């Protein structure tokens, strides 16, 4: 029997609210299954399980907010006898992390140990019976509280999506932009910590993206819209390949030491229409053909903008890429997301005069910047890393 605990979904997360239990006690579960959803400052996050077995029981009721590390369910592993009447022995070992995907341990997050005082003094809100029914309406506790206060009819919103606080008009009838401030708090916590703890240094250069853009246009010419590539997918692959080689920029700085990542899980800074941004991981960004990488990128962006992403996507990034797209400004110098040690920024490409073989030609140029952690690397190696990214982008057919 193992405990399934409230995961840490990033340096800034201290607690989460269990909003969905997607399997029932006794149901079989498999490694990678999504078994629950947790509401955090960044929205509803799907939580995966890391082992095969059966769900024994839920330890935390729906709607209850608990600190990171609190056991939320018991899992019976496959090789244990399936005997529901067996007395439950207290399990001294915490749930083992997945061997190939270690959760980054956050030094400021509450430890997953029993020294945590009784997890929640807070009284869980009453869960109406419809919450346990299939096709039930999924409503966040805060939204339910406001609906109760204002007399708002929740059934008018249907069952299609998770209803959060900003879906419920407040007493004056105006819909509150509440998630912006929670998002702002999350960004503020992570970025303040970054600026306080990480001695950043910065490097920049200019990339000629003419060949990269021509490569994308040639690929897209005979493709239907949903099979077309975006320039961003070349950025992703170029940064990932360079980070795989220059290991000082890919990994985590924790407890006074740097641990290189065993793969490149590229954090993608994605802005949200409702305000703020998140930077979830595109896993194994060095792997697969470009069309497959593009499909994974589209899937990630779509889910993130719907407020639905997976726990590992928030906790796994080993380095972050922030790109301003084609409607931005010339350059961006990023702030490192702890415990990562580097962030690469790419500005909006513009047509610029460039000197080539003694003549001036119009070329598509963009600024590229690296912000990196001086506790781990220096400008010399940083420059080699940045040049490697540029070189990859100038040879797009090899990506």
């Amino acid at each position: 029997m193992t405990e399934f605990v409230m995961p840490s979904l990033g340096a800034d997360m201290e607690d989460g609210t269990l909003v969905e239990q997607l399997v029932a006690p006794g149901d079989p579960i498999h490694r990678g299954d999504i078994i629950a959803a947790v509401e955090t400052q960044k929205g509803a996050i799907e939580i995966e399980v890391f082992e095969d077995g059966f769900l024994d029981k839920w330890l935390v009721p729906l709607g209850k907010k608990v600190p990171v590390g609190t056991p939320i369910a018991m899992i019976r592993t496959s090789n244990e006898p399936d005997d529901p009447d067996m007395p439950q022995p207290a399990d001294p070992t915490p749930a083992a992390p997945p061997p190939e995907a270690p959760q980054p341990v956050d030094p400021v997050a509450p430890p997953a140990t029993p020294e945590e005082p009784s997890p929640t003094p807070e009284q869980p809100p009453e869960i109406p019976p419809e919450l346990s029914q299939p096709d039930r309406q999924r409503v966040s506790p805060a939204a339910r509280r406001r609906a109760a206060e204002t007399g708002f009819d929740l059934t008018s919103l249907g069952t299609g999506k998770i209803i959060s606080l900003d879906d419920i008009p407040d007493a004056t009838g105006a819909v509150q932009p509440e998630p912006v401030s929670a998002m702002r708090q999350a960004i503020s916590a992570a970025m303040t910590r970054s600026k306080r703890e990480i001695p950043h240094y910065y490097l920049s250069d200019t990339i000629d993206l003419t060949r990269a853009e021509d490569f994308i246009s040639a690929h897209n010419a005979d493709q239907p819209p949903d099979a077309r590539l975006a320039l961003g997918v070349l950025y992703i692959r170029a940064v990932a390949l360079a980070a795989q080689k220059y290991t000082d920029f890919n990994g985590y700085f924790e407890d006074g030491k740097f641990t290189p990542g065993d793969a490149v899980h590229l954090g993608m800074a994605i802005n949200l229409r409702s305000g703020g941004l998140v930077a979830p991981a595109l896993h194994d960004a060095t792997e697969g053909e470009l069309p497959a990488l593009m499909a994974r990128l589209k899937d990630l962006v779509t889910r993130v903008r719907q407020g639905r992403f997976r726990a590992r996507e928030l906790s796994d990034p080993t380095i972050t890429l922030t790109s301003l797209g084609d409607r931005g400004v010339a350059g961006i110098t990023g702030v490192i997301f702890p415990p990562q040690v580097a962030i690469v920024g790419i500005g909006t490409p513009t047509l610029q005069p460039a000197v080539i073989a003694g003549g001036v030609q119009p070329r598509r140029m963009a600024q590229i910047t690296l912000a990196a952690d001086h506790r781990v690397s220096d400008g010399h190696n940083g420059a080699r890393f940045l040049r490697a990214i540029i070189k990859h982008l100038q040879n797009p057919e090899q990506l």
Partner: protein
Amino acid sequence: MTDDTIQTLLEKHLRRIAPEVPLDDIDRSADLREEFDIDSMDFMTLITGLGKELSLPMPEADYDQMRSFDDLAGYLRSHSQ
């Protein structure tokens, strides 16, 4: 296809991507992506959706003819029979 049908269809797809932008407030002759604050990924989603619904190839080489709301509506009108 009538102008109204095209207009309704385009509005439906834009509302999915940018639900908070009031269609009455936008400048229909200005850059569509600026008006709706949509990025290249959103634009791909829009083109994919319109192409599927109208069975049009929407080639990338024609993107210049789809810059504003009015341009795009005109493009859809002239290519869908």
